[in-house]
């Protein structure tokens, strides 16, 4: 009885690993380092995580996980609550439709796909936020965030690959 309970708990934890690791990474991106770079250099960690897990483990990273991640980021950010959820839901629709084209492709193709997904996600957020405030938000920082995110993707992928290979089994 105890064994089966601990087994199911272990399985549940493994199935929640994509969501937990994404929450961990998003929280980490808000930590002020005050050392190497300024706080205005922010990669879209949530977008990278949603993109990765939807492509690699859509069975354990579903719509609900995307929603929870959006809520978590919304609580950390001072942008209006709901904008992050909206952005990630749009990304969910986008990636879900592209799933069949990217399945089993090389990392370079996935990366190119991320460039597209990041552009769509950032543009969507920018558009919604601009409508919300009835004012066009500055595009300079947006462009900066896009470039930083694109170059941060391989590092974030490495972390996610580690989580997938080391902390999750095939059963999960």
């Amino acid at each position, binding site marked *: 009885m105890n064994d089966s309970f601990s087994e199911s708990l272990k399985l549940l934890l493994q199935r929640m690993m994509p969501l937990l690791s994404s*929450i961990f990474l998003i929280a980490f991106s808000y*930590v*002020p380092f005050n050392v190497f770079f300024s706080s*205005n250099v922010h990669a879209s960690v949530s977008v990278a995580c949603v993109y990765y897990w939807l492509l690699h483990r859509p069975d354990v990273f579903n719509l609900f996980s995307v929603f929870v991640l959006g809520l978590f980021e919304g609580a*950390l950010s001072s942008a209006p609550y709901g904008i992050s959820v909206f952005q990630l839901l749009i990304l969910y629709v986008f990636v879900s439709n592209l799933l069949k084209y990217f399945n089993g492709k090389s990392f370079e193709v996935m990366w190119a796909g991320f460039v597209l997904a990041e552009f769509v996600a950032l543009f969507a957020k920018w558009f919604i936020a601009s409508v919300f405030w009835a004012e066009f*938000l500055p*595009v300079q920082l947006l462009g900066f965030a896009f470039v930083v995110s694109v170059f941060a993707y391989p590092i974030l992928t490495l972390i996610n690959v580690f989580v997938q290979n080391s902390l999750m089994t095939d059963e999960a």
Partner: protein
Amino acid sequence: MKRRRVLFVQLSHIRLLIKKFALVILFVVAFVMMLLNKTDTVLVDRTSSVATDVVSPVVDFLNLPAKGISFIYDYLKDLRLARRENKLLRAENRKLRLISERARSLEIENRLLAQLLNYKRPDEENLITARVIAEEGDAFSHSLIAYTGKGARPQKGQVVLTERGLVGRLDKVGHIYSKILLITDINSRIPVMIEKTRVRGILAGDNTLQPKLVFTPLFSEIKEGDRIVTSGVAGVFPSGLPVGVVSKVSQREIRVLPYADLDRVEYVKIVSYAQEENPAQVETEGGDE
């Protein structure tokens, strides 16, 4: 038996329907959340404060390794710069002693003149020192989350400073953590003035690194390098707090470079002035934004 089956069928139907329209439902939920934000009600405020209190410990925990890296980096940098800095500090100390003497005599003179005019001094401020645990500065918002502790009772709208100057004001106040809206955020509006000429205006953030100076009188003389301080209009911010320096003057806009290094803030001072404790005034200021 029949009734149970009906209930079972209905539940499964509802479950199927929810599954089918989950995406649409979540989009609607997100939209409703944004609309509620726009209304700026007490309920939204409280929910946001609770949310900040719930998620901030995760970031606070992750601060430990960040602090370690930061400490090692600072230690090595300090070692390298110690000799040169020591020399500079000695020279600065000599200058500061002279300024301190002058300030002391001016303070005495000021007190005597105030007595002569029967001038009532503004109340002393209450200070809370808070540690910054999270920062955000992108195209969508500019804010900080600070650990204020359980004992302190900061209030929404209070002034946030560093040793260099104004940082912003308290936006969401939780039991342990509080969110600070930076002066560069799109929601920030601060009444300011040019220190020398006393020309008034509003410092308006637009999510760039240098906020705009707006609503200045036509044909007013504003030059690059002019110091900007708070004007004290509306009573939320006391007058004379250092804000920044005019960095760009063109026909279209005037930009201000904040004194405080907003992307490298470690500790902040949350200041409560007697005037701010009138919630009506704070609300009016928040409402304008």
